């Protein structure tokens, strides 16, 4: 494990979450690992991160990275509206959004979707 600090002054460990409960080899785990890497490398401050999702396997993702950040498991397939609302409420937030549809990243949202 690298002890190198990013521009937020944090080690990569600060971006870890709970242990995955998904199936071994599940593609979501790979996505999650890359989310950890990306957020670390971008130097995102955890308190500014909001992890949004629906419910279901892909929507468990927010539990598996940046444990100290705010997260929201919503209702099935309805992550985008919750995310839009959170974004409107606080434009400073950096929002990751996951549910079982598409992959997208735009204007302040980091989305890991499958």
């Amino acid at each position, binding site marked *: 494990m690298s002890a190198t600090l990013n521009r937020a002054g944090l080690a990569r460990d600060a971006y870890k979450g709970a242990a995955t409960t998904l199936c071994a080899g599940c593609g979501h785990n790979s996505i999650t690992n890359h989310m950890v890497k990306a957020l670390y490398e971008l130097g995102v401050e955890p308190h500014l991160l909001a992890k949004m999702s629906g419910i279901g396997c892909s929507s468990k993702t927010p539990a598996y990275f940046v444990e100290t950040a705010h997260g929201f498991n919503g209702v099935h397939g309805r992550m985008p509206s919750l995310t839009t*609302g959170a974004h409107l409420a606080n434009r400073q937030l950096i929002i990751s959004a996951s549910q079982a549809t598409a992959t997208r990243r735009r204007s302040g949202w980091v989305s890991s979707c499958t």
Partner: protein
Amino acid sequence: MTQPIVNDLTIQAATVNGSGSQTANLVLTRAIFHMGIPVAPKNVFPSNIEGLPTWYQLRITPEGHMARSDKVDILVAFNVATWREDLKTVRPGGAVIHEEAFSTAEARTDVTYYAVPFAKLAKSKIQNDTLRKQLANMIYVGVVAGLLGIPWEAVEHGVRRQFLTKPKAVPVNLDAIKVGYDYWQDNFSKQDPYRLEPMQGVVEGKVLVEGNQAAALGALMGGVTVVAWYPITPSSSLCEYLVAYADRFRVDTATGEKLISVVQAEDELAAVGMAIGAGWAGARAMTSTSGPGISLMAEFSGLAYYAEVPVVIFDIQRIGPSTGLPTRTSQADLGFVYTLSHGDTKHVVLLPGTVEECYEFARDAFDYADRFQTPVFVLSDLDLGMNLWMTPEFKYPDKPLDRGKVLSKDDLERLAGEWARYRDVDGDGVTYRTLPGTDHPAAGYFTRGSGHDEMARYTEGADAYARNMDRLSRKLETARHVLPAPVADEAGAPIALIAFGSTHAAVVEARETLAASGKPVDYLRIRALPLADDVAEFVRRHDHVYVVEQNRDGQLFDLIRLALPAELVGRLRSIRHYNGQPIPAVAITEPLMQLEAVPA
């Protein structure tokens, strides 16, 4: 001629939807209101853009009764399709202004007819080709002004007030009204007893406002910053008014930037989802809808209840189920909204009974939502929301916003990061939350609609689930004691009425009628769910209590019965009105007198 009837009459204009008749109706309303005379307009319109029949009832009483009347004194018949049926609604001795071309052969002989060649007058006297159809309606305003003795100055005021933002339209409309006014003077002599005379001391300090307009203003005063909505009658005008107010009053004057976000979402599911997402992130957030939209919002409402997210949801009720009668009023969402969602769910529901309360409750709803971290529903209806009501001017808020139990960075430092999102520290069921963006390592927590413990961690633990549900009950019990209390008006009568929402206007009038016939009744107006303890105590003080409401199944009646001790249940009786028309007083007095005649 018979004895004059002054300032006590109901005008009904029967016109064709989309013809511009509503503008004429509003001019007439504002002109009469300007004379100091109380007015109570009810717009009965079809679910249609153009062509179907529409009616506008303008009730005028010296007392200022606001409920719909079931009797018409003066009919303005502009729609040949409904002419025969409209004629049946007129009170014997009433007056009928009608298009000359409508046949009065075999028509009633107990009313006075004033036949006016509206079509010919429009053709010969109105020069503006493009606006002729719309302006033709203005001719009847002139005829009615002549018939009832409305001063020209009041007519001018009505037109200016109606076209406040379009002053260019004033002369052309006044010209059209003058055509009717002159026609009356030149061709008729007064044959009916109805007239209007200026009054003093009744409408001073009062304004005419729609409930949705009042609620929009209330939401603005409540500090709303995120509005997500999907249009639906009769709710749409609430957000439309809000947008208009926000464009004026929620703009950063230095930068021109809007200080409020409004999203017209793709549907009601997204609308409420956005509002909940915003409420979670710390905004004062709302959506507004009607029955079909409320049905779609059920799942998300359960999420906000269980995950404890503040959000304000307006339901401007219309007739259901399903699409129902989209432009007719109802109070039939009460039971559904109270427990909206699957699972054990119970919501805070505010029940404004006047436009003033639409304003106040809309404002306070945001405080309650933040304070109790839960969805707060404001249940209005088409009658209250879309009709103009005479009301005292609204008061500017005299208290700061209540953002509830929110831990800041400083709070967390003071607590050394020791806190739990769902721990009942104060014993009132209301726990502490943090907002995303709070700069403290312990601020973050996980919000979820699945089972969770005090630390907001996922759990399927039996005890944790039951404990959490019990706390949610405790929280609602805390709310119950601070929500708007029922309003009692008692003078020791043995019988009483209970009502909520727009039914209030008809109850006020029914009580006057009953008192005048020697049967005074007490009154309790419910203003929130869950029910306050006062309700049972009120029932205990009376032999019979009639619950009056505008739905088929007696939904409030049922809720009160469930809340009463067994020995009081038998005292309750139910009066229901559910045909989509705003309840008139007679729909209370007649069944009450019949039921009183039956031995208990």
